[in-house]
Protein backbone atom coordinates (compact mmCIF):
# COMPACT_ATOMS: atom_id res chain seq x y z
CA UNK A 1 0.00 0.00 0.00
CA UNK A 2 1.61 3.34 -1.01
CA UNK A 3 -0.06 6.70 -0.65
CA UNK A 4 -3.75 7.51 -0.74
CA UNK A 5 -5.44 10.89 -1.04
CA UNK A 6 -8.85 12.12 0.01
CA UNK A 7 -10.85 15.04 1.28
CA UNK A 8 -10.52 15.97 4.97
CA UNK A 9 -13.72 16.09 7.02
CA UNK A 10 -12.91 17.89 10.27
CA UNK A 11 -14.19 17.10 13.76
CA UNK A 12 -13.29 18.41 17.20
CA UNK A 13 -12.26 16.56 20.35
CA UNK A 14 -14.10 13.97 22.46
CA UNK A 15 -16.45 12.93 19.65
CA UNK A 16 -18.24 10.22 21.64
CA UNK A 17 -20.14 7.17 20.42
CA UNK A 18 -23.45 8.85 21.30
CA UNK A 19 -22.58 11.71 18.94
CA UNK A 20 -21.60 9.35 16.14
CA UNK A 21 -24.67 7.18 16.61
CA UNK A 22 -27.31 8.89 18.79
CA UNK A 23 -29.13 6.35 20.98
CA UNK A 24 -32.45 6.93 19.21
CA UNK A 25 -30.93 5.82 15.90
CA UNK A 26 -29.46 2.53 17.14
CA UNK A 27 -32.50 0.39 16.40
CA UNK A 28 -33.04 1.87 12.92
CA UNK A 29 -32.06 0.11 9.68
CA UNK A 30 -28.59 1.15 8.44
CA UNK A 31 -29.87 3.47 5.71
CA UNK A 32 -31.79 5.41 8.38
CA UNK A 33 -29.04 5.22 11.00
CA UNK A 34 -26.67 6.91 8.54
CA UNK A 35 -28.90 9.99 8.41
CA UNK A 36 -28.36 10.54 12.15
CA UNK A 37 -24.60 9.96 12.13
CA UNK A 38 -22.70 12.86 13.76
CA UNK A 39 -26.09 14.62 14.02
CA UNK A 40 -25.35 16.55 17.24
CA UNK A 41 -22.18 18.17 15.81
CA UNK A 42 -22.60 17.94 12.02
CA UNK A 43 -26.26 17.62 11.06
CA UNK A 44 -26.74 16.41 7.49
CA UNK A 45 -23.23 14.92 7.32
CA UNK A 46 -24.60 11.97 5.32
CA UNK A 47 -25.60 14.35 2.52
CA UNK A 48 -22.15 15.89 2.02
CA UNK A 49 -19.96 12.86 2.71
CA UNK A 50 -18.47 11.12 -0.33
CA UNK A 51 -16.86 7.71 -0.55
CA UNK A 52 -13.14 8.17 0.01
CA UNK A 53 -13.49 11.11 2.41
CA UNK A 54 -11.15 10.99 5.38
CA UNK A 55 -12.14 11.97 8.92
CA UNK A 56 -9.65 14.30 10.64
CA UNK A 57 -10.34 14.74 14.34
CA UNK A 58 -8.80 16.01 17.55
CA UNK A 59 -8.26 14.01 20.80
CA UNK A 60 -10.21 11.02 22.09
CA UNK A 61 -12.25 10.21 18.98
CA UNK A 62 -14.88 7.51 19.63
CA UNK A 63 -14.90 7.65 23.43
CA UNK A 64 -17.82 6.13 25.37
CA UNK A 65 -19.46 2.75 24.98
CA UNK A 66 -18.30 -0.35 23.11
CA UNK A 67 -21.25 -0.11 20.68
CA UNK A 68 -19.96 -1.20 17.31
CA UNK A 69 -22.68 0.68 15.42
CA UNK A 70 -20.57 3.83 15.82
CA UNK A 71 -17.79 2.29 13.74
CA UNK A 72 -20.11 0.44 11.38
CA UNK A 73 -21.95 3.62 10.37
CA UNK A 74 -18.71 5.43 9.49
CA UNK A 75 -17.72 2.54 7.25
CA UNK A 76 -21.17 2.47 5.64
CA UNK A 77 -20.76 6.17 4.83
CA UNK A 78 -17.80 5.19 2.63
CA UNK A 79 -14.98 6.23 4.95
CA UNK A 80 -11.99 3.95 5.28
CA UNK A 81 -9.43 6.12 7.16
CA UNK A 82 -9.81 8.06 10.40
CA UNK A 83 -6.94 10.42 11.19
CA UNK A 84 -6.89 11.89 14.70
CA UNK A 85 -4.72 13.08 17.57
CA UNK A 86 -5.87 10.15 19.69
CA UNK A 87 -8.64 7.58 19.66
CA UNK A 88 -10.50 5.74 22.44
CA UNK A 89 -9.19 2.21 22.59
CA UNK A 90 -12.37 0.18 22.05
CA UNK A 91 -13.23 2.40 19.07
CA UNK A 92 -9.76 1.82 17.66
CA UNK A 93 -10.15 -1.95 18.00
CA UNK A 94 -13.58 -1.80 16.39
CA UNK A 95 -12.06 0.14 13.47
CA UNK A 96 -9.51 -2.56 12.77
CA UNK A 97 -12.14 -5.27 13.26
CA UNK A 98 -14.38 -3.66 10.63
CA UNK A 99 -11.58 -2.81 8.20
CA UNK A 100 -11.17 0.89 8.96
CA UNK A 101 -7.64 2.26 9.33
CA UNK A 102 -6.99 4.30 12.51
CA UNK A 103 -4.19 6.82 12.01
CA UNK A 104 -2.99 8.42 15.22
CA UNK A 105 -0.72 11.40 14.66
CA UNK A 106 0.10 14.13 17.15
CA UNK A 107 -0.43 17.61 15.72
CA UNK A 108 -2.45 16.38 12.76
CA UNK A 109 -5.71 18.21 13.44
CA UNK A 110 -4.03 21.63 13.07
CA UNK A 111 -2.71 20.72 9.63
CA UNK A 112 -6.08 20.65 7.90
CA UNK A 113 -9.16 22.72 7.36
CA UNK A 114 -12.51 21.23 6.41
CA UNK A 115 -12.36 20.08 2.78
CA UNK A 116 -8.54 20.23 2.38
CA UNK A 117 -6.87 17.50 0.45
CA UNK A 118 -5.04 15.04 2.69
CA UNK A 119 -2.35 12.56 1.75
CA UNK A 120 -1.51 9.47 3.76
CA UNK A 121 1.78 7.90 2.77
CA UNK A 122 2.12 4.41 4.25
CA UNK A 123 5.67 3.88 2.96
CA UNK A 124 7.00 6.95 4.72
CA UNK A 125 4.38 6.77 7.51
CA UNK A 126 3.51 10.46 7.08
CA UNK A 127 0.27 12.43 6.85
CA UNK A 128 0.71 15.46 4.61
CA UNK A 129 -1.25 18.50 3.53
CA UNK A 130 -0.15 18.73 -0.14
CA UNK A 131 -1.21 22.40 -0.30
CA UNK A 132 0.94 23.61 2.60
CA UNK A 133 3.54 20.86 2.50
CA UNK A 134 3.20 20.40 6.28
CA UNK A 135 3.41 16.82 7.50
CA UNK A 136 3.37 14.72 10.69
CA UNK A 137 4.46 11.10 11.21
CA UNK A 138 2.26 8.21 12.37
CA UNK A 139 2.83 4.59 13.37
CA UNK A 140 1.42 2.29 10.71
CA UNK A 141 -0.45 -0.87 11.72
CA UNK A 142 1.69 -3.97 11.74
CA UNK A 143 1.32 -7.65 12.56
CA UNK A 144 -2.14 -9.10 13.12
CA UNK A 145 -4.12 -5.82 13.04
CA UNK A 146 -2.53 -5.03 9.67
CA UNK A 147 -3.52 -8.46 8.35
CA UNK A 148 -7.05 -7.98 9.64
CA UNK A 149 -7.34 -4.58 7.94
CA UNK A 150 -5.93 -5.95 4.68
CA UNK A 151 -8.44 -8.79 4.81
CA UNK A 152 -11.34 -6.34 5.09
CA UNK A 153 -11.94 -6.89 8.82
CA UNK A 154 -12.11 -9.70 11.36
CA UNK A 155 -15.40 -11.30 10.27
CA UNK A 156 -14.21 -12.38 6.80
CA UNK A 157 -11.31 -14.02 8.62
CA UNK A 158 -13.68 -15.71 11.05
CA UNK A 159 -15.87 -16.86 8.17
CA UNK A 160 -12.91 -18.52 6.54
CA UNK A 161 -11.89 -20.24 9.79
CA UNK A 162 -15.41 -21.57 10.29
CA UNK A 163 -15.68 -22.83 6.71
CA UNK A 164 -12.33 -24.57 6.95
CA UNK A 165 -13.06 -26.10 10.36
CA UNK A 166 -13.97 -29.78 10.33
CA UNK A 167 -17.58 -30.39 11.44
CA UNK A 168 -18.46 -31.42 14.97
CA UNK A 169 -19.39 -29.47 18.10
CA UNK A 170 -16.79 -27.82 20.26
CA UNK A 171 -13.85 -28.63 18.01
CA UNK A 172 -11.27 -25.87 18.33
CA UNK A 173 -9.80 -24.19 15.27
CA UNK A 174 -6.53 -22.30 15.10
CA UNK A 175 -6.34 -18.54 14.75
CA UNK A 176 -3.39 -16.90 12.96
Amino acid at each position, binding site marked *: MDAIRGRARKFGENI*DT*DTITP*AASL*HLPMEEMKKHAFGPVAPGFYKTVQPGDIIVAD*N*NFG*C*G*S*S*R*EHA*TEVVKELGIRYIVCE*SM*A*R*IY*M*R*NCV*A*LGLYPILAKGVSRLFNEGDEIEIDFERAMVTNPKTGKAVPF*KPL*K*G*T*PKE*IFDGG*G*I*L*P*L*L*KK*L*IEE*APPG*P*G*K*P*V*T*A*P
Partner: protein
Amino acid sequence: MMTIAEKILARASGSGTLSPGDYVTAHIDLAMLPEMLGMIRRVLLKAGIDPASLRIWDTEKVVAVLDHYVPAASLEIAESQQQIREWMEKLHVKYYYDLFPGVCHQIVHEKGHVRPGELIVGADSHTTTYGALNAAATGIGASEMAFVMQTGKLWFMVPETIKFEINGKLPDCVYSKDVILYIAGKYSTDVAQYKAIEWTGPVVDALSMDARFTMSNMSVELGAKFGLFRADRKTIDYVRARTDKEFQPVEPDPGAVYAETYVINASALEPQVALPHGVGNAKGVSEVKDVPIDQAVIASCCHGRIEDLEIAANMLKGKKVHPKVRFWVGPASWEVYKEAMDKGILRTLLDAGVMIANPSCGFCTGIQGVLAAGERCIAATPRNFKGRMGSNDAEIFLASPATVTASAIKGRIADPREVL
Protein backbone atom coordinates in the same frame (compact mmCIF):
# COMPACT_ATOMS: atom_id res chain seq x y z
CA MET B 1 11.49 -5.80 34.25
CA MET B 2 7.76 -5.70 33.53
CA THR B 3 4.54 -4.21 34.94
CA ILE B 4 1.51 -6.37 35.80
CA ALA B 5 -0.08 -5.78 32.38
CA GLU B 6 3.15 -6.57 30.52
CA LYS B 7 3.65 -9.78 32.49
CA ILE B 8 0.09 -11.02 31.94
CA LEU B 9 0.25 -10.30 28.20
CA ALA B 10 3.68 -11.96 27.98
CA ARG B 11 2.42 -15.10 29.70
CA ALA B 12 -0.79 -15.25 27.64
CA SER B 13 1.06 -14.76 24.35
CA GLY B 14 4.04 -16.97 25.14
CA SER B 15 6.40 -14.02 24.66
CA GLY B 16 9.59 -13.18 26.49
CA THR B 17 9.99 -9.61 27.68
CA LEU B 18 7.38 -7.22 26.27
CA SER B 19 7.48 -3.43 26.00
CA PRO B 20 4.73 -0.87 25.41
CA GLY B 21 3.83 -0.66 21.72
CA ASP B 22 4.56 -4.35 20.99
CA TYR B 23 1.79 -6.28 19.27
CA VAL B 24 0.99 -9.79 20.43
CA THR B 25 -1.65 -12.44 19.81
CA ALA B 26 -2.70 -13.81 23.18
CA HIS B 27 -4.77 -16.72 24.50
CA ILE B 28 -7.86 -15.54 26.33
CA ASP B 29 -8.53 -17.00 29.78
CA LEU B 30 -12.15 -15.86 29.95
CA ALA B 31 -14.61 -14.32 27.48
CA MET B 32 -17.53 -12.50 29.07
CA LEU B 33 -20.73 -12.12 27.03
CA PRO B 34 -23.35 -9.74 28.39
CA GLU B 35 -26.64 -8.98 26.62
CA MET B 36 -24.51 -7.54 23.78
CA LEU B 37 -25.00 -11.11 22.50
CA GLY B 38 -27.91 -9.74 20.45
CA MET B 39 -25.48 -7.44 18.60
CA ILE B 40 -23.00 -10.29 18.11
CA ARG B 41 -25.71 -12.35 16.41
CA ARG B 42 -26.53 -9.40 14.19
CA VAL B 43 -22.96 -8.77 12.99
CA LEU B 44 -22.50 -12.46 12.25
CA LEU B 45 -25.68 -12.61 10.18
CA LYS B 46 -24.64 -9.46 8.31
CA ALA B 47 -21.28 -11.04 7.48
CA GLY B 48 -23.04 -14.10 6.10
CA ILE B 49 -22.10 -16.34 9.03
CA ASP B 50 -24.75 -18.57 10.59
CA PRO B 51 -24.50 -17.83 14.35
CA ALA B 52 -25.21 -21.49 15.06
CA SER B 53 -22.13 -22.51 13.06
CA LEU B 54 -19.85 -20.98 15.69
CA ARG B 55 -18.03 -23.42 17.95
CA ILE B 56 -16.97 -22.19 21.36
CA TRP B 57 -13.25 -22.84 21.67
CA ASP B 58 -13.42 -23.87 25.32
CA THR B 59 -16.71 -24.03 27.20
CA GLU B 60 -14.90 -23.65 30.53
CA LYS B 61 -13.77 -20.19 29.45
CA VAL B 62 -16.99 -18.53 28.35
CA VAL B 63 -19.55 -16.89 30.62
CA ALA B 64 -22.77 -15.32 29.33
CA VAL B 65 -25.20 -13.16 31.31
CA LEU B 66 -28.55 -11.62 30.43
CA ASP B 67 -28.34 -8.37 32.35
CA HIS B 68 -29.17 -5.18 30.50
CA TYR B 69 -32.88 -5.48 29.72
CA VAL B 70 -34.10 -7.78 32.49
CA PRO B 71 -37.01 -8.30 32.86
CA ALA B 72 -37.96 -7.71 29.23
CA ALA B 73 -40.08 -4.56 29.01
CA SER B 74 -41.00 -4.73 25.32
CA LEU B 75 -41.81 -7.33 22.72
CA GLU B 76 -38.65 -6.41 20.81
CA ILE B 77 -36.48 -7.19 23.85
CA ALA B 78 -38.40 -10.37 24.67
CA GLU B 79 -37.75 -11.63 21.14
CA SER B 80 -34.09 -10.74 21.28
CA GLN B 81 -33.74 -12.61 24.59
CA GLN B 82 -35.57 -15.58 23.12
CA GLN B 83 -33.06 -15.72 20.25
CA ILE B 84 -30.15 -15.42 22.68
CA ARG B 85 -31.50 -18.32 24.78
CA GLU B 86 -31.81 -20.59 21.77
CA TRP B 87 -28.38 -19.60 20.53
CA MET B 88 -26.67 -20.20 23.87
CA GLU B 89 -28.21 -23.67 23.99
CA LYS B 90 -27.04 -24.47 20.46
CA LEU B 91 -23.51 -23.35 21.30
CA HIS B 92 -23.51 -25.46 24.50
CA VAL B 93 -22.49 -22.46 26.61
CA LYS B 94 -22.00 -24.03 30.00
CA TYR B 95 -21.99 -20.91 32.19
CA TYR B 96 -25.08 -19.07 31.00
CA TYR B 97 -26.87 -16.94 33.61
CA ASP B 98 -30.45 -16.21 32.62
CA LEU B 99 -32.69 -16.97 35.63
CA PHE B 100 -31.67 -14.98 38.70
CA PRO B 101 -29.38 -12.76 36.67
CA GLY B 102 -27.69 -9.61 37.86
CA VAL B 103 -25.30 -7.08 36.45
CA CYS B 104 -22.64 -9.00 34.50
CA HIS B 105 -19.73 -7.31 36.28
CA GLN B 106 -21.01 -8.65 39.61
CA ILE B 107 -22.14 -12.13 38.54
CA VAL B 108 -18.92 -13.05 36.77
CA HIS B 109 -16.58 -12.68 39.76
CA GLU B 110 -19.21 -13.54 42.35
CA LYS B 111 -19.64 -16.98 40.73
CA GLY B 112 -15.89 -17.56 40.73
CA HIS B 113 -15.11 -17.11 37.02
CA VAL B 114 -12.35 -14.51 37.56
CA ARG B 115 -8.93 -15.41 38.89
CA PRO B 116 -5.78 -13.35 39.52
CA GLY B 117 -3.28 -13.15 36.68
CA GLU B 118 -5.83 -13.92 33.95
CA LEU B 119 -6.37 -12.18 30.62
CA ILE B 120 -10.09 -11.47 30.19
CA VAL B 121 -12.14 -9.80 27.48
CA GLY B 122 -15.80 -8.82 27.71
CA ALA B 123 -18.22 -7.31 25.22
CA ASP B 124 -18.77 -4.36 27.54
CA SER B 125 -16.59 -1.37 28.37
CA HIS B 126 -16.74 -1.88 32.16
CA THR B 127 -15.03 -5.29 31.93
CA THR B 128 -12.10 -3.46 33.57
CA THR B 129 -13.94 -4.23 36.87
CA TYR B 130 -12.08 -7.56 37.24
CA GLY B 131 -8.80 -5.68 37.57
CA ALA B 132 -9.69 -5.51 41.27
CA LEU B 133 -8.91 -9.24 41.32
CA ASN B 134 -5.52 -8.74 39.61
CA ALA B 135 -6.90 -9.79 36.20
CA ALA B 136 -6.03 -7.89 33.02
CA ALA B 137 -9.62 -7.41 31.86
CA THR B 138 -10.90 -5.13 29.13
CA GLY B 139 -13.83 -4.40 26.82
CA ILE B 140 -14.03 -5.25 23.11
CA GLY B 141 -16.69 -4.89 20.40
CA ALA B 142 -19.13 -7.43 18.99
CA SER B 143 -17.16 -8.59 15.92
CA GLU B 144 -13.99 -9.19 17.89
CA MET B 145 -15.98 -11.09 20.51
CA ALA B 146 -17.40 -13.36 17.82
CA PHE B 147 -13.81 -14.11 16.77
CA VAL B 148 -12.76 -14.83 20.36
CA MET B 149 -15.73 -17.17 20.91
CA GLN B 150 -14.52 -19.32 18.03
CA THR B 151 -10.74 -19.11 18.42
CA GLY B 152 -9.93 -18.13 22.01
CA LYS B 153 -7.33 -15.68 20.74
CA LEU B 154 -7.05 -11.97 20.12
CA TRP B 155 -4.37 -9.44 19.21
CA PHE B 156 -3.30 -6.80 21.72
CA MET B 157 -1.01 -3.83 21.72
CA VAL B 158 1.01 -3.79 24.92
CA PRO B 159 -0.07 -0.61 26.76
CA GLU B 160 2.08 1.75 28.75
CA THR B 161 1.38 1.47 32.48
CA ILE B 162 0.73 4.42 34.77
CA LYS B 163 0.66 4.25 38.52
CA PHE B 164 -1.70 5.99 40.92
CA GLU B 165 -0.35 6.04 44.44
CA ILE B 166 -3.10 6.96 46.91
CA ASN B 167 -1.53 8.04 50.18
CA GLY B 168 -2.89 9.15 53.55
CA LYS B 169 -6.21 7.93 54.91
CA LEU B 170 -9.76 8.36 53.60
CA PRO B 171 -11.62 10.86 55.82
CA ASP B 172 -15.07 9.97 57.17
CA CYS B 173 -17.71 9.80 54.42
CA VAL B 174 -15.08 9.73 51.67
CA TYR B 175 -14.92 6.51 49.64
CA SER B 176 -13.09 4.98 46.69
CA LYS B 177 -15.76 6.47 44.38
CA ASP B 178 -14.74 9.94 45.59
CA VAL B 179 -11.09 9.20 44.84
CA ILE B 180 -11.84 8.21 41.28
CA LEU B 181 -14.22 11.12 40.64
CA TYR B 182 -11.55 13.45 42.00
CA ILE B 183 -8.97 11.99 39.61
CA ALA B 184 -11.38 12.35 36.64
CA GLY B 185 -12.00 15.97 37.62
CA LYS B 186 -8.38 16.87 38.19
CA TYR B 187 -6.57 14.91 35.46
CA SER B 188 -9.44 14.52 32.94
CA THR B 189 -11.18 11.47 31.55
CA ASP B 190 -8.39 10.59 29.13
CA VAL B 191 -5.52 10.62 31.64
CA ALA B 192 -5.15 6.86 31.20
CA GLN B 193 -6.11 6.60 27.54
CA TYR B 194 -4.86 3.33 26.07
CA LYS B 195 -2.86 2.73 29.26
CA ALA B 196 -2.96 0.19 32.05
CA ILE B 197 -3.43 1.63 35.54
CA GLU B 198 -1.86 0.08 38.62
CA TRP B 199 -3.66 1.22 41.77
CA THR B 200 -1.26 1.38 44.73
CA GLY B 201 -0.65 3.00 48.09
CA PRO B 202 -1.88 2.57 51.69
CA VAL B 203 -5.42 3.77 50.91
CA VAL B 204 -5.79 1.15 48.17
CA ASP B 205 -4.38 -1.59 50.43
CA ALA B 206 -6.95 -0.73 53.10
CA LEU B 207 -9.93 -0.86 50.73
CA SER B 208 -12.45 -3.70 50.84
CA MET B 209 -12.97 -5.79 47.69
CA ASP B 210 -16.30 -4.03 47.04
CA ALA B 211 -14.57 -0.63 47.14
CA ARG B 212 -11.82 -1.87 44.83
CA PHE B 213 -14.37 -3.10 42.27
CA THR B 214 -15.71 0.46 42.07
CA MET B 215 -12.25 1.78 41.18
CA SER B 216 -11.34 -0.82 38.60
CA ASN B 217 -14.85 -0.44 37.14
CA MET B 218 -14.40 3.29 36.71
CA SER B 219 -10.83 2.98 35.42
CA VAL B 220 -12.40 2.87 31.96
CA GLU B 221 -13.91 6.31 32.65
CA LEU B 222 -10.29 7.51 32.76
CA GLY B 223 -9.71 5.86 29.36
CA ALA B 224 -7.82 2.87 30.77
CA LYS B 225 -7.42 -0.50 29.11
CA PHE B 226 -6.90 -2.25 32.46
CA GLY B 227 -7.45 -1.07 36.05
CA LEU B 228 -5.18 -3.37 38.00
CA PHE B 229 -4.70 -4.08 41.69
CA ARG B 230 -2.08 -6.37 43.17
CA ALA B 231 -3.45 -9.53 44.77
CA ASP B 232 -3.28 -9.50 48.58
CA ARG B 233 -4.88 -11.59 51.33
CA LYS B 234 -8.30 -10.04 50.66
CA THR B 235 -8.09 -10.85 46.96
CA ILE B 236 -7.01 -14.43 47.54
CA ASP B 237 -9.73 -15.00 50.16
CA TYR B 238 -12.39 -13.59 47.83
CA VAL B 239 -11.35 -15.84 44.94
CA ARG B 240 -10.69 -18.95 47.05
CA ALA B 241 -14.19 -18.76 48.52
CA ARG B 242 -15.56 -19.04 44.97
CA THR B 243 -13.38 -21.43 42.98
CA ASP B 244 -11.11 -24.42 43.39
CA LYS B 245 -9.26 -23.75 40.15
CA GLU B 246 -5.57 -22.90 40.23
CA PHE B 247 -4.30 -19.38 39.68
CA GLN B 248 -1.10 -17.39 39.78
CA PRO B 249 -1.26 -13.77 41.01
CA VAL B 250 1.03 -11.37 39.15
CA GLU B 251 3.27 -8.83 40.87
CA PRO B 252 5.03 -6.01 39.03
CA ASP B 253 8.81 -6.39 38.83
CA PRO B 254 10.70 -4.00 41.15
CA GLY B 255 12.37 -2.30 38.17
CA ALA B 256 9.20 -2.08 36.04
CA VAL B 257 8.88 1.10 33.97
CA TYR B 258 5.87 3.39 34.44
CA ALA B 259 4.99 6.07 31.91
CA GLU B 260 3.81 8.29 34.76
CA THR B 261 3.18 8.14 38.51
CA TYR B 262 0.45 10.26 40.09
CA VAL B 263 0.57 10.75 43.85
CA ILE B 264 -2.65 11.69 45.62
CA ASN B 265 -3.16 12.63 49.25
CA ALA B 266 -6.55 11.14 50.14
CA SER B 267 -6.57 12.73 53.62
CA ALA B 268 -7.33 16.09 52.01
CA LEU B 269 -10.33 14.90 49.95
CA GLU B 270 -13.98 15.73 50.49
CA PRO B 271 -16.95 13.83 49.00
CA GLN B 272 -17.15 14.46 45.25
CA VAL B 273 -20.00 15.01 42.82
CA ALA B 274 -19.67 14.78 39.01
CA LEU B 275 -21.94 17.37 37.41
CA PRO B 276 -23.85 16.77 34.17
CA HIS B 277 -22.91 15.59 31.52
CA GLY B 278 -19.49 14.07 32.10
CA VAL B 279 -17.54 12.11 34.71
CA GLY B 280 -14.78 14.69 34.39
CA ASN B 281 -17.03 17.47 35.76
CA ALA B 282 -16.27 16.39 39.32
CA LYS B 283 -16.26 18.94 42.16
CA GLY B 284 -16.13 18.81 45.95
CA VAL B 285 -19.69 18.52 47.33
CA SER B 286 -19.25 21.80 49.21
CA GLU B 287 -19.08 23.58 45.84
CA VAL B 288 -22.41 22.08 44.71
CA LYS B 289 -25.12 23.93 46.57
CA ASP B 290 -28.91 23.99 46.53
CA VAL B 291 -29.51 21.55 43.73
CA PRO B 292 -32.91 19.91 44.32
CA ILE B 293 -33.29 16.32 43.09
CA ASP B 294 -36.20 14.18 41.91
CA GLN B 295 -34.57 10.77 41.96
CA ALA B 296 -31.70 9.04 43.78
CA VAL B 297 -30.22 5.71 42.70
CA ILE B 298 -27.75 3.20 44.10
CA ALA B 299 -27.32 0.39 41.56
CA SER B 300 -25.23 -0.80 38.58
CA CYS B 301 -21.89 -2.53 38.09
CA CYS B 302 -20.17 0.33 39.90
CA HIS B 303 -22.24 0.08 43.09
CA GLY B 304 -25.16 -2.08 44.22
CA ARG B 305 -22.79 -4.30 46.22
CA ILE B 306 -23.44 -5.27 49.83
CA GLU B 307 -21.14 -2.63 51.29
CA ASP B 308 -22.90 0.10 49.28
CA LEU B 309 -26.31 -1.03 50.56
CA GLU B 310 -24.96 -1.20 54.11
CA ILE B 311 -23.69 2.39 53.91
CA ALA B 312 -27.15 3.56 52.83
CA ALA B 313 -28.93 1.53 55.52
CA ASN B 314 -26.64 2.78 58.30
CA MET B 315 -27.31 6.38 57.30
CA LEU B 316 -31.06 5.84 57.04
CA LYS B 317 -31.63 4.23 60.47
CA GLY B 318 -34.27 6.36 62.19
CA LYS B 319 -34.47 8.72 59.21
CA LYS B 320 -36.76 9.12 56.22
CA VAL B 321 -36.22 9.68 52.53
CA HIS B 322 -37.41 13.17 51.50
CA PRO B 323 -41.09 12.95 50.44
CA LYS B 324 -40.35 14.40 46.99
CA VAL B 325 -37.51 12.02 46.15
CA ARG B 326 -37.86 8.63 44.47
CA PHE B 327 -34.98 6.67 46.00
CA TRP B 328 -34.28 3.35 44.24
CA VAL B 329 -31.73 0.78 45.35
CA GLY B 330 -30.91 -2.06 42.98
CA PRO B 331 -28.73 -4.83 44.42
CA ALA B 332 -26.20 -5.85 41.75
CA SER B 333 -27.13 -9.54 41.99
CA TRP B 334 -29.60 -11.85 43.72
CA GLU B 335 -26.77 -13.02 46.00
CA VAL B 336 -26.35 -9.43 47.16
CA TYR B 337 -30.14 -9.19 47.47
CA LYS B 338 -30.28 -12.25 49.75
CA GLU B 339 -27.36 -11.08 51.86
CA ALA B 340 -29.02 -7.69 52.28
CA MET B 341 -32.19 -9.49 53.34
CA ASP B 342 -30.35 -11.67 55.87
CA LYS B 343 -28.59 -8.66 57.36
CA GLY B 344 -31.83 -6.71 57.76
CA ILE B 345 -30.62 -4.07 55.32
CA LEU B 346 -33.65 -4.33 53.05
CA ARG B 347 -36.01 -3.85 56.02
CA THR B 348 -34.15 -0.70 57.11
CA LEU B 349 -34.18 0.69 53.59
CA LEU B 350 -37.89 -0.07 53.05
CA ASP B 351 -38.87 1.43 56.42
CA ALA B 352 -37.00 4.61 55.52
CA GLY B 353 -38.88 4.95 52.24
CA VAL B 354 -36.41 3.40 49.78
CA MET B 355 -37.77 1.29 46.91
CA ILE B 356 -35.90 -1.91 46.02
CA ALA B 357 -35.37 -2.72 42.33
CA ASN B 358 -34.53 -6.06 40.75
CA PRO B 359 -30.86 -6.68 39.95
CA SER B 360 -30.13 -5.45 36.37
CA CYS B 361 -28.57 -2.61 34.40
CA GLY B 362 -31.95 -0.89 34.12
CA PHE B 363 -31.47 2.26 36.19
CA CYS B 364 -27.95 2.97 34.90
CA THR B 365 -28.89 3.04 31.28
CA GLY B 366 -32.38 4.45 30.95
CA ILE B 367 -34.39 1.24 30.78
CA GLN B 368 -36.04 1.50 34.19
CA GLY B 369 -36.69 4.62 36.24
CA VAL B 370 -36.41 6.84 33.17
CA LEU B 371 -36.02 10.60 33.76
CA ALA B 372 -38.32 13.21 32.20
CA ALA B 373 -37.10 16.53 30.80
CA GLY B 374 -36.03 18.89 33.57
CA GLU B 375 -35.65 16.12 36.17
CA ARG B 376 -32.49 15.66 38.21
CA CYS B 377 -31.06 12.42 39.49
CA ILE B 378 -28.11 11.77 41.78
CA ALA B 379 -26.74 8.31 41.10
CA ALA B 380 -24.15 5.90 42.41
CA THR B 381 -23.54 4.55 38.87
CA PRO B 382 -20.53 4.94 36.56
CA ARG B 383 -21.72 7.34 33.79
CA ASN B 384 -23.70 10.54 33.49
CA PHE B 385 -23.63 11.17 29.74
CA LYS B 386 -26.39 13.33 28.33
CA GLY B 387 -29.58 11.38 27.79
CA ARG B 388 -28.28 8.21 29.44
CA MET B 389 -31.20 7.87 31.86
CA GLY B 390 -33.94 9.18 29.60
CA SER B 391 -34.53 12.72 28.38
CA ASN B 392 -31.65 14.71 26.89
CA ASP B 393 -32.91 17.52 29.08
CA ALA B 394 -32.58 15.58 32.34
CA GLU B 395 -29.49 15.98 34.52
CA ILE B 396 -27.47 13.19 36.12
CA PHE B 397 -25.05 13.80 38.99
CA LEU B 398 -22.66 11.03 40.04
CA ALA B 399 -21.57 10.42 43.61
CA SER B 400 -20.82 7.75 46.22
CA PRO B 401 -23.67 5.77 47.86
CA ALA B 402 -23.20 7.91 51.00
CA THR B 403 -23.61 11.21 49.14
CA VAL B 404 -26.58 9.78 47.21
CA THR B 405 -28.24 8.72 50.46
CA ALA B 406 -27.61 12.08 52.15
CA SER B 407 -29.10 13.81 49.13
CA ALA B 408 -32.15 11.54 49.14
CA ILE B 409 -32.78 12.46 52.79
CA LYS B 410 -32.36 16.20 52.21
CA GLY B 411 -34.13 16.39 48.85
CA ARG B 412 -31.15 18.26 47.41
CA ILE B 413 -27.52 17.41 46.77
CA ALA B 414 -26.06 17.13 50.25
CA ASP B 415 -22.82 16.36 52.03
CA PRO B 416 -23.06 13.02 53.87
CA ARG B 417 -21.33 14.61 56.84
CA GLU B 418 -24.46 16.76 57.29
CA VAL B 419 -26.67 13.80 58.10
CA LEU B 420 -24.40 11.73 60.33
